[in-house]
């Protein structure tokens, strides 16, 4: 909005010149639509080449391919949440967490959980943590020829990584958690308030739907920030629709945001009941497949990445982790970003991820 800045009217009422300016601007923006439509058809997400090296049911373990020579013995395995697709960590050029590790010479893997079908509604945390994750870890260990690997967990994948590291500590060399909830005692997050047992009957929901439906998860996340997601985002897009770079980033993000997948019913039920409602993980009372998850069992170096402005996983849900583990080498980085900004924000890629790679490099054996 660069035209019509002269003030002829009184108060906040726009002047006739301003109205004319806005109409002209709207006309110019209409001309940008064909380019936007073309860009929308060419959106590419998940930029680093990868290939599946292990499959089980719907899961695929992806290994990133690179020309960069391997510099570290210990590989990195990324564990993403079950709610969305994992390519957010490799979204587009300059917005790829994965590429930081790949370019530093780390052998890097990522778990793509796949889309659970109706028949997968009985898969629980036991299946995801003790079966799928364990098999992926074993595959990575075998391929890299090491006993222990580096684990990076994001969001719910971070909680699952913490559970896994507590249950199988002998297989983990370094643990990095990224906006990972572990303590649900507070009410900073709206999700925490909405999932309280008096307002949310998770058993009934899973009984009826089987899995937690993607559309329902999507609308819940959208409702957490209604003004931003339903109004501001679109105004921002309108104002920047002639900026090619902005449109590309916007479309890539929208592709990911709208690519929701259902969560296996039993896992969702367990996560809501045992984590959100009873907060068992941080208290050391959570059981996964008849095994007690004691965070004190985690003794490897810990790096806890907390997003300061996270509305989904507020810092109060992530910060207590470092005090609950048995490790002596533990570090927290609180970064001024939102939940997704931690993975795709320009500043995070400029300032945070090089630091994370340095931290990991210091604790990894060179070849």
């Amino acid at each position: 909005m660069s035209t019509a800045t002269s003030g002829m009217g009184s108060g906040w009422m726009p002047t006739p010149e301003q109205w004319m300016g806005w109409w002209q601007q709207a006309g110019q923006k209409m001309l940008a639509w064909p380019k936007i439509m073309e860009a929308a058809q060419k959106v590419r997400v998940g930029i680093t080449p990868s290939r599946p090296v292990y499959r089980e049911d719907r899961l695929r373990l992806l290994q990133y391919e690179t020309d960069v020579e391997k510099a570290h013995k210990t590989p990195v395995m990324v564990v993403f949440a079950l709610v969305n697709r994992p390519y957010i960590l490799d979204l587009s050029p300059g917005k790829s967490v994965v590429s930081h590790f790949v370019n530093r010479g780390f052998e890097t893997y990522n778990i793509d959980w796949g889309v659970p079908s109706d028949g997968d509604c009985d898969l629980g945390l036991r299946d995801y943590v003790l079966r799928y994750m364990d098999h992926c870890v074993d595959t990575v260990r075998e391929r890299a020829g090491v006993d222990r690997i580096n684990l990076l967990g994001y969001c719910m994948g971070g909680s699952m990584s913490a559970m896994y590291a507590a249950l199988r500590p002998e297989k983990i060399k370094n643990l990095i958690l990224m906006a990972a909830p572990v303590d649900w005692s507070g009410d900073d997050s709206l999700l925490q308030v909405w999932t309280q047992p008096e307002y949310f009957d998770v058993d009934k929901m899973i009984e009826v739907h089987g899995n937690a439906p993607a559309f329902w998860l999507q609308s819940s996340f959208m409702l957490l920030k209604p003004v931003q997601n339903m109004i501001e985002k679109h105004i921002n897009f309108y104002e920047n629709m002639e900026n090619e770079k902005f449109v590309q980033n916007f479309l890539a993000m929208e592709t990911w945001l709208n690519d929701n997948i259902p969560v296996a019913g039993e896992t969702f039920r367990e996560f809501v009941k045992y984590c959100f409602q009873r907060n068992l993980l941080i208290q050391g009372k959570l059981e996964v497949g008849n095994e007690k998850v004691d965070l004190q069992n985690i003794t490897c170096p810990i790096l806890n990445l907390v997003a300061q402005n996270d509305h989904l996983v507020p810092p109060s849900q992530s910060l207590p982790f470092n005090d609950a583990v048995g490790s002596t080498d533990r570090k927290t980085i609180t970064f001024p970003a939102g939940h997704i900004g931690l993975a795709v924000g320009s500043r995070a890629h400029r300032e945070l991820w090089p630091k994370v790679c340095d931290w990991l490099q210091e604790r990894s054996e060179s070849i």
Partner: protein
Amino acid sequence: MSMNGGFPQPGSDPFTQFWTDFSQKMMSAGMPTPAPSPTEEAFGKVRQLFFESMSQHAEQFMRSEAFLSAMKQAMDNGLAWQQMMNQTLQKSLAGAQMPTREDANQITVLIRGMEDRILDRLEDVCRRVEVLEGKRTSGKNG
């Protein structure tokens, strides 16, 4: 759960609270009301403050008992309707001798159970083989 935190005048109605909060934000940002000459920058600032107020009040509202109760009721009704639909469809499909989602789930559960049992047996066999190999090795050494 805070019910009224952040509101400028607890006790007044939400509509008044919102506009009071908005005008307070405008004043603290140094925006004169009404502006002598509305510039693009001023419009942008007003819009930003308006949305900030809206966000804050939306968050407060979505934490309120009224919203939570309404959400629960809407969800309960939605689930009841969905359940009724599921049952009707299941009955119709069963009547037409066609497999339902439940049947497919049942088969998956059966296959998974079978897989688990086979894997458990294999692990058991592996353990026995290891014990026997251990005994054989110790026998040779002894």
